[in-house]
C-alpha cells in the first residue's frame, strides 16, 4: 500500500524533474542562439531539414483539408441558402485554427520525430561526447541551429497550409459545386481580417514551433543511448508535441478570440 503511494508520488516528482531539466535545457539553448550569427550555414542546413523537407506533406494535406472543408461546409450551408459563404467558412477555419494546428501536428510527426531520432542517434553513437571532448559546445553546434530552424519553419508552413487550403476550397466550391467565384472571394475578404485573423494564426504557428522544437530536441538530448531508447524518445516527442499543440491551441484561442 505504502509502496503504491510512494510510486505514485515518484511518478509525479519525475514529471516535475524532467520539466525542470527541460527548462534549464531551453535556457542553455536560448543563450547559445547569438552564436548562430557567426555560422549561418548551420541554420540554413537545418532549415532545409525541417522546413523544405516537410513542404510536400504540408502542401498536399493543405489542399485536401481545404477541399474537405469546402465540401462539408457547402453541404451544411446550402440548407440555409448561404452557400456563398463557403469561402468565409473555409478561410476563417483554416487561418484561425486548422492552419497552425494541423501544420503543427504534421510538423511534429515529420520534422520533430526526425530531429529527436537524429540527436538521439548522435548520443547513442557517442558523437555528442566526442564533440564535448574537442571543446565544441553541442548547444551551439547541434541544438541551437535546429531550434531556430524549427521556430522559423512552423509559422511559415502554417501560412502556406492556409493559403493552399483556401485555394483548394476555391477549386472545389467554384469548379465542382457551383458557388459563384466572385461571391466566394469577396465574402471571404470582407470577413477575414489580416491583422487579427492571419496575424493571430502566425502567432500561434510561432508558439507551436517553439514548443514542438523544444520538446523534440530535449527528448533527443535526454534519451537513453540505445536503439530502444531512441525509438521511445521519438514516440514521446510526437505524443507530447501533439498534446502540447492541442492544449496551447485552446489556451491561445481563448486569449486571442
Amino acid at each position, binding site marked *: 500500500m505504502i509502496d503504491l503511494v510512494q510510486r505514485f508520488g515518484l511518478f509525479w516528482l519525475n514529471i516535475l524533474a524532467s520539466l525542470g531539466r527541460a527548462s534549464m535545457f531551453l535556457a542553455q539553448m536560448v543563450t547559445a542562439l547569438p552564436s548562430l550569427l557567426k555560422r549561418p*550555414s548551420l541554420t*540554413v*542546413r537545418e*532549415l*532545409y531539414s525541417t*522546413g*523544405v523537407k516537410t*513542404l510536400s506533406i504540408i502542401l498536399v494535406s493543405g489542399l485536401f483539408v481545404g477541399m474537405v472543408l469546402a465540401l462539408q461546409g457547402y453541404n451544411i450551408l446550402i440548407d440555409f441558402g448561404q452557400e456563398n459563404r463557403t469561402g468565409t467558412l473555409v*478561410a476563417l477555419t483554416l*487561418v484561425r485554427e486548422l492552419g497552425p494546428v494541423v501544420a503543427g501536428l504534421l510538423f511534429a510527426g515529420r520534422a520533430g520525430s526526425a530531429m529527436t531520432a537524429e540527436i538521439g542517434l548522435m548520443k547513442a553513437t557517442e558523437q555528442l561526447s566526442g564533440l564535448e571532448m574537442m571543446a565544441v559546445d553541442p548547444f551551439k553546434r547541434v541544438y541551437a541551429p535546429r531550434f531556430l530552424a524549427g521556430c522559423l519553419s512552423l509559422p*511559415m508552413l502554417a*501560412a*502556406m497550409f*492556409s*493559403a*493552399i487550403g*483556401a*485555394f483548394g476550397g476555391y477549386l472545389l466550391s467554384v469548379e465542382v459545386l457551383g458557388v459563384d467565384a466572385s461571391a466566394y*472571394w469577396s465574402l*471571404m*475578404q*470582407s*470577413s*477575414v*481580417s*489580416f491583422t487579427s*485573423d*492571419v496575424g493571430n494564426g502566425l502567432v500561434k504557428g510561432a508558439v507551436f514551433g517553439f514548443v514542438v522544437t523544444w520538446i523534440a530536441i530535449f527528448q533527443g538530448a535526454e534519451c537513453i543511448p540505445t536503439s530502444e531508447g531512441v525509438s521511445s524518445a521519438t514516440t514521446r516527442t510526437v505524443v507530447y508535441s501533439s498534446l502540447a499543440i492541442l492544449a496551447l491551441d485552446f489556451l491561445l484561442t481563448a486569449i486571442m478570440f
Partner: protein
Amino acid sequence: MNSRAIQVLVGLFMLLFILAMLVLALRVSNLTSLSGGESYSLVAKFENIGGLKEGASVAASGVRVGEVSSIEYDAGTFEAIVNLSIDAKFNSFPLDTSASIYTAGLLGEQYIGLEPGAEIDALVDSDEIDQTQSAIVLERLIGQVLFSRSGED
C-alpha cells in the same frame, strides 16, 4: 546534397512563404480595401445604432465610400456617437447630408447609408452630420404592430 543546392532550396522555401503571405493578405483577407490613402472623419449621432459594428461600411447610393471607425456613447445627451472615416476623394457631401442605418439583405449586417442633401457647402473633416435616422429595432416594430392592431379592435 551539396551546400549550394541546399541554399537554393531554402531560398525557394522562403520565396514560397512570401508568396503564401501575399495570397493571404491580398486574396483571403481584407487588406486590399484598407490600402488607398487619405481619409477624413465625420461624426453622426444616433438614438439607436442597432447592430452596427466598428468597421461596418458607409455607402452612398449603395457604393462603399468609407467605414465606421469608432462607436462611443455620450452619457450627457444619451446618444450613440459614431465616427465615420470617409475616403478623401469623396469630399463633396453637402452640409445637410443625412445618415441612416440600413441592413444589408434581410438579416445581414448593418451599414450606414448617406443621402446627399441640397446645400452648396460640403462637409469637411470633423464635421457633424445633423440628420440621422436610427436603426430599425425588430422588437419596437412588433410592439408598434401590436399597438396599432389593438387600437383597431
